[in-house]
């Protein structure tokens, strides 16, 4: 079952930027692309845990600020020769507000 949670306004995230959402399961990075698309993925790079929310956003990808691993925002998969992936979370925009499906993120609380 989905659990859509309002996490803030679309305008609170810079275009081609990201903001963090703290959760019981760790930090989730919420990205806004040049086309105002929104994506949510785990903030930790699969390479050495770099904060992906601080990377440069280009197209539907982000480049990790620590060692330049490139990850797709929509699939969470590493690009090019690199291997690895991060979890992605359903997120959508309604009337200028960002809704994150926190179903998987709250599981820690229930368990």
């Amino acid at each position, binding site marked *: 079952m989905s659990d859509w949670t309002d*996490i803030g306004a679309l305008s609170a995230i*810079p275009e*081609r930027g990201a903001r*963090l959402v703290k959760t019981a399961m760790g930090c989730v990075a919420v990205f806004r692309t*040049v086309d105002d698309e929104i994506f949510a993925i785990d903030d930790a790079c699969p390479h050495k845990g770099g904060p992906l929310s601080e990377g*440069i956003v280009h197209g539907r990808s982000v480049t990790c*600020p620590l060692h330049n691993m490139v990850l797709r925002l929509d699939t969470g998969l590493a690009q090019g020769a690199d291997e690895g992936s991060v979890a992605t979370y359903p997120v959508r925009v309604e009337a200028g507000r960002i809704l994150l499906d926190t179903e998987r993120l709250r599981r820690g609380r229930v368990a």
Partner: protein
Amino acid sequence: MTRNLIVIGAGMASGRVLEHLFETQPGAWNVTLFNAEPRGNYNRLMLSPVLSGDKTYAEIVTHDAAWYEERGVTCRFGEKVARIDRGAKIVVAPDGTELPYDKVVIATGSNPFMIPLPGHDLDGVIPYRDLEDTERMMGLGSAPGARAVVIGGGLLGLEAAAGMAARGIDVTVVHIMGHLMERQLDEAAGYLLKKALEDKGITVLTGTNSKQILGEGGKVRALELDDGTELPCDLLCMAVGIRPNVALAKDAGLAVAKGIHVDDQMLTSDADILALGECVEHQGAIFGLVAPLYDQAKVAAETLGGTQAAFVPKEVATKLKVTGCDLFSAGDFAEGDGRDDIVFRDPSRGIYKRLVLEGERLIGAVMYGDTGDGAWFHGLIKDRTDVTEMRDTLIFGPAFQGGAQSDPLAAVAALPADAEICGCNGICKSAIQTAIKGGAATLSDVRAQTKASASCGTCTGLVEQVMALTLGDGFEVQTVKPMCPCTPLTHMDVRRLIKAKALKSMAAVMQECGWTTLCGCASCRPALNYYLLCDWPGEYQDDDQSRFVNERMHSNIQKDGTYSVVPRMWGGITTADELRAIADAADKYKVQTVKVTGGQRIDLLGVKKQDLPDIWADLNAAGMVSGQAYAKGLRTVKTCVGTDHCRFGTQDSTGLGIRMEKALWGSWTPAKVKMAVSGCPRNCAESTCKDVGVICVDSGYILHIGGAAGLHIKGTEVMCTVKTEDEVLEYTAAVVQLYREEAAYLERMYKWMDNVGLDHIIERVVTDADSRKALADRFYYAQRFMQQDPWAERTKPEYRELYAPLADLTLEAAE
């Protein structure tokens, strides 16, 4: 039996309803048509050609007096319906007469939205909605030197601007968003549109906020912008959007949200009242384009006739022509998962095409300049065609589908001898072949002999293919290293084009240089941001999102995601008070490590992101600013104590170092720049391994450049010797500026020196005094925009929130 139908509003939607009605149900209705405007149905879409003078009002009337008369329509134009009494089933006219009805059609359209700026009620502030507004703008054209301002860079605003410009009016468009028509176009297409409008003499200000409208004697005089600029004008047209006109329906107690609520049959919450057009809301959507309105009209007519029909919203494409610029946008080019872009740009012809794919389907398209294939793409979107098979050539349109040649050499071979290869210099295929047969064996030979690909360079690939064809195996494609995978151009090509073509935004560079990606990559964006910042000081807006994390955060990121904070210590000099403030900050923010750096300052390591604005504010309060230890810019000027204390010192090396640091801090450079001033040749400040090093001697100052002690160890070269401190500052500013203007991004000064040669630098900075002076002037001009402490800026409230999480769901979980 004839029944009474009252139609309220004579716009494009109701005109179409009447047509269907008299065609399919002749004699069934006794129609009364109200219109608040003092005229009948006309084609509102054609107001723009009327404004520009291409058409007259008479030509855009869709239904004239004879048409209404033939069909027995009672016209009540210039009369605004007072109210609908649903209980009594009557419509009340403004003069109080009561008209009984069987059915009512509400087609009240929309109202222009007027921003409630101070002064919006002045005479001369108008929307762009009806013939009166149009005539007002046309009237201005006869006054010599007339000026107009249009607020709103959407379709309507631009049509108003273009129409007035065509009548010789001096027009400025003010648009709040970063690019024009942001709902239909992406940034690249918006850029091309802006350029085309500017070519027509229209001034376009994007990303610009209005503050108030200034008047004189009750009449508009000027628009004042947020930054205080005044744009004088005789007329101000506000075209910022429309709102469904729901007043009458709301007053009658019908269900109304954004618009008047209608179901699939165009019935409102009252089964005897229908509504359609821009005033309605259907399944949460409101309507502004004409195609769905016509569909609604058909359904409304059938509902009135008692036939079952349902309105189904369709995928709508916008094909627009704004002042002769061809635009097309269709489908969805935003929001959603798993999408890919195909981008095609032809800079010399000003063409931009972008397709958005989701899985095996095309879901959106934006085109500028060449929209010939728009209908075909729109069809693919509507029909949800599987495009997997044609994906590789999809962007070239239908002409390219089915048995297209995939070998690029074959395509070049098929070109006729007089086909133009290089558009900049007008060089055709045969001219290149002649040069090759005459002995030109490399790309630079061909460039030297024919000038082909020697200007903008976008045809380089084509020239190489002609060479490969002509020379056969004897030709090897030269390996010039492109800037990044987004472009075949090198860093130097791009820098040259930015200057030559006066490209002042990232969108401009990407379009004019034929970028193959939508918004670049992590490699080219920081480089472009630097080049634009360097070449257009005061004009180009620094783009935070195109900077590496350290420069965006103004701190160095550490491997655990915390940051290090380094306050500036001018020339390595500090005071007991500063040290106390640093110690207090270290305690307060639980700094993990306090370290003395190689650049003679103190590094506070392990500060959490959310604490950054606070620690900066504390250090600011103690008089310290950012040391920019993270910047591709001036880092430190290291000094020794010089004549102040040292028995060997020959000059005031500390004082000079401080002067240099104060003059040069804040500047952005291709890579980091470190400097040092040593008070004597013993060189305690290690000047001979810095980008710029000064060694003081009795007779003056020896200036060294091009040293480094990092990945590579490089001793400096001597540039020259000067006599005074003022000269040291002028020469240093000049050499740094030359480096700023000529080097590739991330290229340290020594690498640049290897590439251009020390002689070139000496010629520009030492031998040629005019050149030196001009370089130093350009450097100090740029510094006027750069010397602002980034910490002070980022402790302001509007920045602070960016350092905090967007949301904290752990708090909730803990409950």
